[in-house]
């Protein structure tokens, strides 16, 4: 099943052959113009089912979400039901909570949240009203930066409200796109009228979020999984995926000398099968960048043997994160890739925490020098130390992403790093790949826009 956008869109969208798609469109004719799923079409496909009825129904549904084992899809993979239960518990002591659908996809290497909001806004809204029901929220927000996603959701909210399918008011908050704007406290600050920048914790949104109320912030893909559980139950949900990473997930695949693609895959799929689906010869894979820019690099031989679920990718020393996987191309030197991504962090961090704006700038300077053959052993020793001592020193995850990148480059690619050092003043530092062409990108492995129609 291949779904194409208009002729100018280069990002293919498809579910793994043989997989019944839960998140992507099921019945789009190949080659036909694609547009947002209408309210009528979603309703006809058993969307917006009645209920849950009352407090008891909400409690049972939360139990089903817990049994489904659904994990958050924004990157942290936190169990959805644990987060929802915490919000409920805090709300019992304070005031009714708020639910936020987080669709601000700051990650340049990922398109899945934008795709969902543009193409299946009702699936997300259905999930949002179910999340609101289980925590007892009286108000909900959709937080986005993509203008096309905002338009699509606004139209969907209008249609669903008119038909009486949204029991609570849903507001849309639009911000300028930014890497740091997608963090949950940035969403809360922006909705509260502040800048879309992260806040330090505590308090976390579950304690004090939108208007000071306990707030459940969930990624839009996480919410898009809730209607399936409501309709079919936890056991059916678990028929795809692994025991600890149940269900399917959306994977944005970039790099590897292929056009980018958005796939729906079952958790636990061997990475080899993804490579074959994507048309990449596994012998050419010498490295991958995981979880967008967040989870760092993995060496090719380790990557091809892993499966795509949170446990296996963690065991490989990395993280599946938001499901974005960038395959390093034949001439993409991991040192040069790391230098470009670190430069992005040094530019795009919130400029709030001293450890982050200093640490990313310092690591970026070392990686630039290393790429260009001018880094010394002392520089490398500093980079190694920063990759350890700076972890956890920022209010949000940006600095952790930067240390993941630096640390994983050093541990997975010691030989390439060594060639860049030893090369000294020689052209391109003795690296075969950089000798052909030096990888440089402002937004490395940025996924192409997925077209609406």
């Amino acid at each position, binding site marked *: 099943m291949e779904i194409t956008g208009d002729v100018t869109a280069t990002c293919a969208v498809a579910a793994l052959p043989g997989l019944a798609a839960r998140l992507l469109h099921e019945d789009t004719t190949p080659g036909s113009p694609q547009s947002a799923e209408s309210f009528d079409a979603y309703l006809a496909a058993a969307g917006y089912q009645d209920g849950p009825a009352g407090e008891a129904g909400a409690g049972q549904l939360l139990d089903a979400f817990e049994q489904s084992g659904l994990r958050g899809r924004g990157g942290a993979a936190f169990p959805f039901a644990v987060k929802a239960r915490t919000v409920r*518990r805090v709300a019992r002591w304070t005031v009714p909570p708020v639910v936020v659908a987080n669709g601000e996809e700051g990650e340049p290497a990922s398109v899945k949240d934008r795709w969902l909001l543009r193409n299946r806004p009702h699936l997300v809204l259905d999930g949002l009203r179910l999340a609101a029901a289980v925590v007892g929220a009286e108000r909900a927000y959709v937080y986005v930066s993509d203008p096309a996603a905002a338009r699509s959701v606004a139209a969907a909210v209008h249609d669903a409200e008119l038909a009486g399918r949204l029991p609570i008011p849903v507001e849309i908050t639009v911000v300028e796109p930014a890497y740091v704007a997608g963090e949950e406290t940035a969403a809360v600050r922006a909705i509260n009228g502040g800048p879309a920048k992260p806040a330090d914790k505590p308090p976390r949104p579950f304690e004090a979020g939108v208007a000071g109320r306990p707030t459940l912030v969930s990624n839009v893909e996480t919410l898009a999984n809730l209607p399936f559980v409501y309709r079919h139950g936890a056991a059916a949900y678990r028929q795809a995926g692994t025991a600890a990473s149940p269900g399917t997930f959306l994977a944005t695949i970039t790099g590897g000398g292929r056009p980018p693609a958005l796939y729906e895959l079952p958790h636990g799929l061997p990475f080899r099968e993804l490579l074959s689906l994507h048309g990449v010869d596994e012998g050419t894979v010498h490295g991958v960048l995981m979880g967008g820019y967040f989870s760092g690099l993995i060496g090719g031989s380790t990557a091809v043997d892993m499966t795509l679920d949170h446990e296996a990718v963690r065991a490989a020393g990395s993280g599946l994160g938001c499901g974005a996987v960038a395959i390093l191309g034949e001439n993409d030197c991991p040192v040069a890739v790391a230098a470009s991504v670190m430069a992005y962090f040094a530019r795009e961090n919130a400029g709030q*925490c001293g*450890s982050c704006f200093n640490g990313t700038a310092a690591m970026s300077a070392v990686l630039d020098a290393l790429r260009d053959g001018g880094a010394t052993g002392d520089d490398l020793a500093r980079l190694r130390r920063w990759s350890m*001592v700076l972890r956890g020193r920022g209010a949000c995850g940006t600095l952790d992403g930067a240390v993941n990148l630096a640390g994983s480059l050093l541990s997975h690619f010691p030989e390439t790093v060594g060639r860049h050092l030893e090369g000294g003043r020689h052209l391109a530092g003795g690296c075969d790949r950089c000798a052909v062409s030096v990888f440089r990108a402002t937004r490395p492995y940025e996924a192409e826009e997925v077209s609406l129609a």
Partner: protein
Amino acid sequence: MRIRLDRTVCDGFGVCAARAPGYFSLDDWGYASLSGDGEVAPGDEAAVTRAILDCPVHAVTRLAKPPWAEESGG
């Protein structure tokens, strides 16, 4: 007592680490992070209170324990 450090406010004066070195660590540029989870042992409360009072930008604050922290289950 329980404290928080807002690192978006910290300007790297380093006074906190001078007053209560067991609770605050400084990076290479002098910016602070909490060393533990913010729980302060009774015997250290005087030193940590000095750190709170002496921070020029009020990045360190004392936290009240919320009622739901005591409750278990959902």
